[in-house]
């Protein structure tokens, strides 16, 4: 007979009373997303591990303050984001670029297009300066609106908009270049000139 499944609300209530098994279940369910957010905010694997650990600790310590007004996943995102931003401020240094940068394949022969695309994008995102990476991550991964991002990063919403646009354009160009350089990647819709990629390996 399977053990009874608890709703998330029940698990949260139990965790708030100190039930470690309930807390474990909640953390297990949210871990991947939390780690992913931390990975993108911190910019490299080593710092992401620290950031993720701090985020989980912040969630455990702050669970009693979760009042159910937002989704639990949204709340954990916010807590994780703040924990990682604190970690960045604490370290007061720019995270090292990801190891992925050095591991980038020169051709797509051994990887499918999606994986290569993702690695290129990951590396490009990691290489972005914090000022541009953080708003992008908070918008496209965490789902914050511009006002929230502005509050988290202490910048004006107009600045948030500008930085996201610049970061997004940069990534778009990077992906575009990659597309031009990879024969196996599906070509983007033909441009008006109808020119084919000119830089092939």
């Amino acid at each position, binding site marked *: 007979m399977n053990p009874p499944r608890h709703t998330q609300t029940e698990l949260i209530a139990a965790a708030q009373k100190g039930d470690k098994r309930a807390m474990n279940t909640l953390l297990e369910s949210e871990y991947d997303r939390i780690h992913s957010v931390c990975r993108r905010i911190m910019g490299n694997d080593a710092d992401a591990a620290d950031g993720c650990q701090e985020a989980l600790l912040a969630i455990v310590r702050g669970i009693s303050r979760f009042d159910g007004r937002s989704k639990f996943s949204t709340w954990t995102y916010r807590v994780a984001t703040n924990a990682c931003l604190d970690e960045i401020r604490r370290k007061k240094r720019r995270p090292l670029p990801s190891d992925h940068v050095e591991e980038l394949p020169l051709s797509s022969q051994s990887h499918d297009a999606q994986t290569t695309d993702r690695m290129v994008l990951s590396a490009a995102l990691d290489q*972005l300066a914090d000022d541009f990476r953080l708003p992008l991550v908070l918008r496209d991964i965490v789902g914050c609106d511009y006002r929230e991002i502005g509050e988290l990063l202490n910048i004006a919403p107009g600045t948030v908009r500008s930085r996201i646009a610049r970061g997004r354009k940069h990534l778009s160009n990077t992906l575009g270049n990659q597309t031009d350089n990879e024969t196996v990647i599906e070509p983007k819709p033909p441009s008006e000139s109808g020119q084919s990629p000119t830089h092939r390996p």
Partner: protein
Amino acid sequence: MNFPDPNSPIEPPEVDDITAKLSALLDGELDRTELIDVEQFAVDNGTTIDELSADLAASKVAVSHLVTDPVPPSTRSAHIGAALDAMEMPEVKSFAAARVDRAQRLNNRLRRLTAVAAIFAVVGGIGLLSVQGGFGGSDDEAATSSDDSAESAAMLERNQSADGSASDDGDSFDASAEEAFEGAAPSEAGDTDLAQSVPPEPISVPEAFDLAGATLFDLPADVRQRSSIASGSSAPVNEAICFDAAAELVPQEEIVEGIIIEQAGSEFELVVLINEELFVFELPECVQVD
């Protein structure tokens, strides 16, 4: 020719106003007026908003899909395990607090006993005076006897207060009883009691050992095991002598205990923090050592 540092962060170039608006449009952050501007731009250029923003949209979608990065199982279990362990941390803290509470309760009990003893001394002294008065005894002898009783009470006081604030002169029985209640503030009494229960005996640390920047787990094993964190047991917590000095540097709740060591003829206290880092203070003045 200067090549860019591959590790230096990239600051993307400025984008034009339309690109910024297209990007904001994807995020649902464009107002009506701006949307009209973008639509007009598209019409003027013989295209559509969707076409104009296709690359930005692809970038946005690709970034949002990065959320599915895999995590090594070992990292995952280590992270979650450490976080769950943190749920027990308040219990560790409350253990230390419980010791203080217990010490204070013990101290209160001692104070009550002291008071009772003082009352018995008063009653006994009066009775003795009466008897001696009835049989022609001297006041001096009565005073001496009552002094003995009061001194018994005072001895109890001394057991609870090492600062000598409790009176043992026996001049006044009432004073003795009163001092038993007021001789020491509860917190002082509690600290003293703890200090007495765990006498800080310095552990010798080799002169070559560099204390600067050391954490709890860098310390020699015999020193480390003095810590309740390292021993992992409910061994007596060594109350930090330099607690106040440490509390100026970190929140009080982060201070776990103090370990007294001797190095090169000087005594130091290693104040252990809950994150296993240490503050080093030179005794007896609690001067922090960098």
